């Protein structure tokens, strides 16, 4: 089996910075990503010179990617493994054994890491609503990925709804690429920021970015409606309209305010959930994040998890965005490399201070953009909650109220929620919310369906074929 000093899983902002920081002292650093090139979701881009670039570039982040990519290419210590999935990780005394499979099928292999940095990033938190399975409904991150990475607009006449500053970013990108954005429907109100002015004051770059996006939306005449939610998507075989309602300051919506807007596509964004499967497989301690929504990995000041030789950086330690991910990545990379010598990392005070400042801002963001408190009331009894197994709300209610299920695992075994292809990634949060609301038990990270032995579904054929011969 191949051995490496430091293996970094995920080549987004956290992973790229980790690999570069580790390569300062470690001689053999491997950076793995399931995408065809480094960058992750944040720096998603078509290949250079590709005709897939559409719309005006909306930010300067591409310059940063070009610089990071050049540094990675110039490093003699870093090997990048693109289009590679880590489908399982097994704990070792120190570090881990990672099981790899090429994306799109092929020969599996294993890699022994003396130290590993987990930086797998996050995916969109999706809330089920009536009609959310119709073609034309996409997560905000998905719509952005299709546009930025593949030159495809999800529709011509679009609404963007949910909560958080990412909505504005997606709406600006869609409008810039030629879509008509009929409106951004932000569940929360900007007044929620009033309590967090100190966090904003120390992150002026965020304020400027927000102002720039607001200007872009104005230029494209995209209206932003605060305190509004999309509670239903209408259509037969694809999106035809959405139902929009006003919500009050506590996040309860008023059905009397409901109105329909004709659109052909909808972007829904409610925040992000980190990909914690590999960390869980390695036995790293987890906990629920500040918002109570996401299971995240516990790390110490040097980004160490509870397992020796296993470090974590970026969204997996708590949703915080690209800048926080980058600084956590730098610290994790330094710490992973130093751990090979059994020494603590030498991290500059300004770096630790930057991490503290970014975390402060992330906490303010989390508080300013909560989920609407009664979103489960938007579900009808026939609303599909588990997309894969097509399980409606009524079956979940029946499992709880008639069959006596009192936790997510029992609901799963009774009505198949979370048993399909995505292994609960799309419905786990919704099912957890419904179960905890019905039983009155407080939510615990132990309820989440993240305890999967296989991090990414791979084919039985690939498993049966076994690893490549030693070379």
């Amino acid at each position, binding site marked *: 089996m191949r051995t490496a000093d430091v293996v970094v899983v995920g080549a987004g902002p956290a992973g790229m910075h980790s690999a570069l920081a580790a390569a300062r002292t470690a001689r053999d650093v491997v950076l793995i990503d399931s995408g065809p090139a480094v960058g992750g979701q944040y720096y998603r881009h078509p*290949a250079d010179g590709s005709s897939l670039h559409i719309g005006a570039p909306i930010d300067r982040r591409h310059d940063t990617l070009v610089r990071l990519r050049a540094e990675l290419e110039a490093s003699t210590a870093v090997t990048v493994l693109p289009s590679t999935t880590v489908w399982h990780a097994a704990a070792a005394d120190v570090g881990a054994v990672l099981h790899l499979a090429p994306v799109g099928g092929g020969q599996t292999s294993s890699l022994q890491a003396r130290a590993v940095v987990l930086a797998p990033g996050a995916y969109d938190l999706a809330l089920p609503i009536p009609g959310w*399975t119709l073609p034309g409904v996409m997560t905000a*991150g*998905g719509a952005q990925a299709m546009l930025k990475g593949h*030159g495809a607009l999800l*529709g011509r006449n679009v609404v963007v709804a949910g909560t958080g500053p990412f909505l504005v970013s997606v709406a600006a990108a869609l409008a810039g690429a030629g879509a008509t954005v009929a409106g951004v429907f932000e569940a929360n109100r900007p007044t929620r920021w009033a309590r967090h002015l100190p966090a904003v004051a120390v992150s002026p770059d965020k304020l400027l970015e927000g102002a720039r996006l607001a200007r872009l939306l104005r230029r494209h005449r995209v209206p932003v409606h605060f305190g509004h939610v999309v509670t239903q998507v209408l259509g037969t075989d694809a999106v035809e309209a959405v139902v929009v309602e006003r919500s009050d300051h506590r996040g309860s919506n008023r059905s009397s305010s409901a109105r329909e807007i004709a659109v052909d596509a909808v972007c829904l964004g409610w925040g992000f959930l980190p990909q914690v499967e590999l960390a869980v497989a390695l036995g790293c301690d987890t906990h629920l994040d500040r918002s109570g929504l996401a299971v995240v990995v516990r790390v110490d000041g040097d980004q160490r998890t509870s397992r020796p030789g296993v470090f974590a950086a970026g969204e997996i330690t708590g949703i915080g965005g690209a800048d926080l991910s980058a600084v956590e990545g730098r610290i994790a990379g330094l710490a992973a490399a130093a751990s090979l010598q059994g020494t603590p990392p030498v991290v500059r005070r300004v770096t630790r201070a930057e991490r503290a400042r970014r975390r402060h801002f992330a906490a303010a963001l989390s508080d300013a953009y909560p989920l609407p408190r009664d979103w489960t009331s938007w579900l009808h009894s026939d609303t599909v909650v588990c*997309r894969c197994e097509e399980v409606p709300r009524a079956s979940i209610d029946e499992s709880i109220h008639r069959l006596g299920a009192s936790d997510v695992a029992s609901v799963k075994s009774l009505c198949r929620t979370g048993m399909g292809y*995505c292994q609960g990634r799309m419905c786990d949060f919704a099912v957890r919310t419904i179960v905890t609301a019905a039983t009155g038990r407080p939510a615990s990270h132990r309820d989440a369906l993240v305890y999967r032995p296989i991090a990414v579904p791979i*084919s039985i054929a690939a498993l049966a074929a076994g690893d490549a011969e030693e070379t």
Partner: protein
Amino acid sequence: MTEPSGADGSFTFTFDGVPVRGVPGQAIGAALLVAGIRSVRRTPGGSERGMFCGMGVCFDCIVLVDRSTVRSCVTSASPGLVVSRLDGGAHADR
């Protein structure tokens, strides 16, 4: 909608026999979107589905390529690729 190979390296593949234009590096699902095709399969329960998460997590946009199901949002289109819809029933063996 279909054009011969263009200066941008574009090519043609088929979706249920219908020619669709693709660009190198473009996911099957994205090429279908550009061609105005948003529904890529019908579920065993009979509902139409398209791309949802757009990054390989939800598996809603699976299509058949060479008798295997692949996620159309993360699988690149290529010249002459034969892609078909899953239509209800049990999924093909992966």
